[in-house]
């Protein structure tokens, strides 16, 4: 017996050609946590919604500002002044009424992060700052779920998939954050990096393909050049390198 309705089988017909009904059912059973409804979070949420991820939790505590509209495509001109969580929820429900959207208007912090992520199968890093990214990294390690990292500046972007115990954690790769700034950005860059992240989410949930694990993807839009760099666990990493490290190392062998 299929857990997909007739309507869903029609909606996802063209990707069922790729993943089969079983794959589609896996997506339907999945729950993904999207941290941020901005430049990365908007396209990630839209594409995961249309792909039929059963439950999407999207968290953002901001209000839509006119300066967001060049890239944060979940929010429209009419939404200026509205809570981003509300604006995102409205659009995502319309985009796909067959999935569950949980939009939460709260600032992710030390005290609430673990509870917010709950039993999600993975965390999409759609944040714009390293302190929150490091927090999500720790939650992902604690829960043993992947963190799909993405970040951008101007026409330049980076992405990697962090799998606890199998890849370096975010702090192994980026031990120190760059200085905070008002970063320049044009919407196409987060659009592109978000698609790398969303593709990773789908492959992880479907258990198919090669993940962007132990590799940092770098995109330079100005040069139209993609490159990648091998990244390794730091045995001395203060976040993932102590205590559990030996055990994780053995598991990987």
């Amino acid at each position, binding site marked *: 017996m299929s857990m997909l309705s007739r309507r869903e089988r029609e909606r996802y017909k063209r990707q069922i050609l790729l993943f089969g009904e079983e794959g589609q059912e896996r997506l339907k059973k999945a729950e993904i946590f999207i941290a941020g409804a901005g430049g990365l979070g908007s396209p990630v949420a839209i594409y995961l919604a249309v792909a039929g991820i059963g439950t999407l939790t999207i968290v953002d505590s901001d209000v839509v500002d006119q300066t967001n509209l060049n890239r944060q495509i979940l929010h429209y001109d009419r939404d200026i002044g509205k809570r981003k969580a509300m604006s995102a929820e409205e659009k995502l429900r319309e985009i796909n009424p067959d999935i569950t959207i949980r939009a939460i208007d709260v600032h992710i912090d030390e005290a609430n992060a673990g509870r917010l992520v709950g039993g999600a199968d993975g965390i999409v890093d759609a944040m714009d700052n*390293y302190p929150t990214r490091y927090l999500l990294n720790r939650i992902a390690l604690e829960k043993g779920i992947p963190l799909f990292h993405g970040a951008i500046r101007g026409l*330049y972007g980076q992405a990697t998939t962090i799998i606890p115990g199998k890849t370096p954690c975010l702090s192994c790769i980026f031990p120190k*954050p*760059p200085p905070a700034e008002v970063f320049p950005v044009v919407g196409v860059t987060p659009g592109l990096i978000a698609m790398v992240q969303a593709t990773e989410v789908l492959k992880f949930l479907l258990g198919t393909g090669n993940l962007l694990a132990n590799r940092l993807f*770098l995109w330079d839009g100005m040069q139209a050049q993609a490159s990648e760099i091998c990244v390794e666990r730091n045995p001395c990493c203060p976040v993932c390198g102590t205590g559990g490290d030996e055990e994780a190392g053995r598991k990987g062998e």
Partner: protein
Amino acid sequence: MKVRVRFFARFRELLGTDIIAEPPPGTVFAALIREVARKNREGYDAIFDGHGAFREFVILMRNGKRVEAADAEETVVADGDEIAVFPPVSGG
């Protein structure tokens, strides 16, 4: 001796994309980057602090392997090496 130096992101904007350097034998990683970066003051300052030390967020790679800033002062580069220097980006 030829060493390929690749900058990324902001460093690339200031210092160029792909640079083939020809350092004398015995040149260490950090000295090579200082020399290459010297052509653009803003680029140099983006990578190094006032004491000429790598800024703490700068990521250094040699042939795909991470090099710690402290080791970069002792690691001698070799012919054919590929060196990458980049800052993490933070926008979202």
